[in-house]
């Protein structure tokens, strides 16, 4: 007797994570798909977004529980006063996560955005590692390796805990939808056209008087902020963050695979790729025998990336057809 409700429950939980990854992949698409920034340090922005939101919304540290960290924003209770019929703290948390990532991206980008793409890749790798080490070693910041737990549920009181996933799925899809619309608008705007021109041929874009560095920096900040939102959504889903949560596989490689599979340079592709790859990911659990070994996934992701690069670099949907190639 198939437990239909159980399957649907599982499916909803799966969709929540897929949707969160879709947000992160959208951010990567702004970096790589539209601007040609080779960012292999996604995990860094993922972590900053998650931690920012967590720190702002978690209760102040309790010394009795050996909690080392210094700051707990406790936003839900503090913002209780601002309840406009509905809790607003979540929105603030998301915005804060986006802003924190944006500021960090600005600082890093200031130093590094001029670098050639492959140098930028190694640099983003180092930055992500540095961020991880800081969170791990500075216990006062976010409780080090113990991590932050009991991150509050958004609108938890609204539904029965068993059905919360359905509510959160709606929230995630709403956020994803808004971001999708915003990014698509931005890409089709004059600003977006400059970005694509830069990706096609940086020297020509430079020659036509565009401040290439400024545009790249803007794209870097925008993409990072989106990744921050994804991180925050993630934090409020799992409700526990620690440095281990953001290992390279789950926080960087899988997102690259998602963008490659779906079609880089294509917002719809980014979202499609996320659901496909996450579907394969979750699906491998049910394969017989050794194929369900979680380590198989690492191998799978690697082979997937090599395969896409070798045979179909455009991904499933390929690049989005643009309306104009001119640089305005």
């Amino acid at each position, binding site marked *: 007797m198939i437990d239909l409700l159980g399957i649907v429950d599982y499916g909803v939980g799966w969709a929540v994570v897929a949707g969160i990854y879709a947000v992160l992949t959208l951010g990567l698409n702004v970096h790589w798909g539209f601007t*040609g920034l*080779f960012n*292999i340090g996604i995990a860094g922005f993922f972590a900053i977004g998650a931690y920012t939101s967590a720190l702002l919304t978690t209760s102040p540290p309790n010394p009795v529980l050996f909690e080392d960290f210094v700051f707990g924003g406790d936003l839900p209770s503090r913002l209780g006063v601002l309840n406009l019929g509905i809790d607003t703290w979540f929105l603030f948390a998301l915005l804060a996560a986006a802003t924190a990532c944006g500021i960090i991206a600005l600082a890093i980008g200031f*130093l*590094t955005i001029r*670098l050639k*793409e*492959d*140098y930028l*890749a*190694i*640099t983003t*790798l*180092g*930055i992500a*590692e*540095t961020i991880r*080490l800081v969170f*791990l*070693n500075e216990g006062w910041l976010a409780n080090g390796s113990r991590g932050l737990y009991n991150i509050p549920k958004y609108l938890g009181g609204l539904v029965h805990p068993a059905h919360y996933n359905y509510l959160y799925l709606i929230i995630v899809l709403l956020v994803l939808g808004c971001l999708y619309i915003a990014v698509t608008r931005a890409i089709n705007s004059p600003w977006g056209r400059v970005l694509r021109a830069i990706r096609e041929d940086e020297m020509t874009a430079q020659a036509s008087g565009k401040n290439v560095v400024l545009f790249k920096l803007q794209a870097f900040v925008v993409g990072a902020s989106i990744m921050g939102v994804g991180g925050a959504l993630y934090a409020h889903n799992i409700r526990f963050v620690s440095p281990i949560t953001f290992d*390279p*596989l789950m926080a960087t*490689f899988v997102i*690259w695979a998602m963008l*490659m599979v779906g079609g880089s340079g294509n917002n719809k592709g980014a979202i499609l790729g996320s659901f496909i790859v996450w579907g394969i990911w979750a699906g491998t659990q049910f394969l017989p025998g050794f194929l369900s*070994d979680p*380590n*198989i*996934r*690492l*191998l*799978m*992701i*690697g*082979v*997937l*990336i*090599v*395969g896409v*690069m*070798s045979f179909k*670099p455009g991904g499933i949907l390929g690049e989005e057809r643009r309306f104009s190639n001119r640089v305005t």
Partner: protein
Amino acid sequence: MITRLSVLVAVLALAVLAMTSVIKLELVVNGLVMGSIIALGAMGLTLLYGNLKFAHIAHGDFMTIAAYLVLFVISVPLSNLGLTAIGLGPFTFGYPLLIALPFAVLIAAFAAVLLDIGVYRRLRNRGSSTVVMAMASLGVAIALRGLVQITWGGDIQQYPRLSKLFFKLPMDVRIPPDALFIAGVALVVTISLHLLLTKTKIGKAMRATADNVDLARVTGINTELVILWTWVIGAGLAAVAGVLLAVFQAQLLPIMGWKFLIPLFSAVILGGIGNPYGAFLGAMIVGVSAEVATQWINPSYKPVIAFAILIAVLLIRPRGIFGVRD
């Protein structure tokens, strides 16, 4: 000329500071040992960068897989043959490691050649950009690590070893006994590489191809053969580095090579891309700096020191010490 002079000055300053105990000499010595491991990886990486013209992100995982291959050879075939000795001379490991090492090097070189024929050559012929090649190597890196984790799991492993006392040298320097082995192997391999590059036809052809691949082709040099040799040497060097790293740290982890990428790229860029002598020097600088810094900074932040050097070079002098302007 100025940069070479400043490097010399820096080395002298370091020596003075160490002698007067401002810096602990032990850290410098350990840094040099670590530097020699980084050097082996970095020299291979820079040769690949110079001839294949892309950042080989899978280089670290080549180190990892070689280290694990040695573990396999020691634990299975050699063990079944009854060759289980450990504690060779003053070292912690036994002669089985020395037997296993060449196998790992050969397999790594072979794997690299297969990957070139199967993956990178196709992308090359298509005229793929350096980023696309780098991204493919990212996929390879992930797949290699997946293979390691599937086969050996994620727990810490070790080569069979016999604990030995640290050597006590003058000026309060204590070094692990294996350090001499590591430094010795690194030295022999480096000299061999130098001889290969300067005295053999294929070595000179490698340098020529790195200088100017189009000219190499019209001179009649078989550049595809040069590329295969570059892979053999690059992967071989990485394999030795991986095994030495596992010996030095007395542990193997699937992520060990990936974690090594930042020091490797720092050394390569510091020395000037494509220049193995620069990579050697860069590796020593990165190794010593990271160790010496622990006198004042939490040792967990050693990777950040290497990264800081990388950023500094990219911002101040992107071509590195010996590099030619792009």
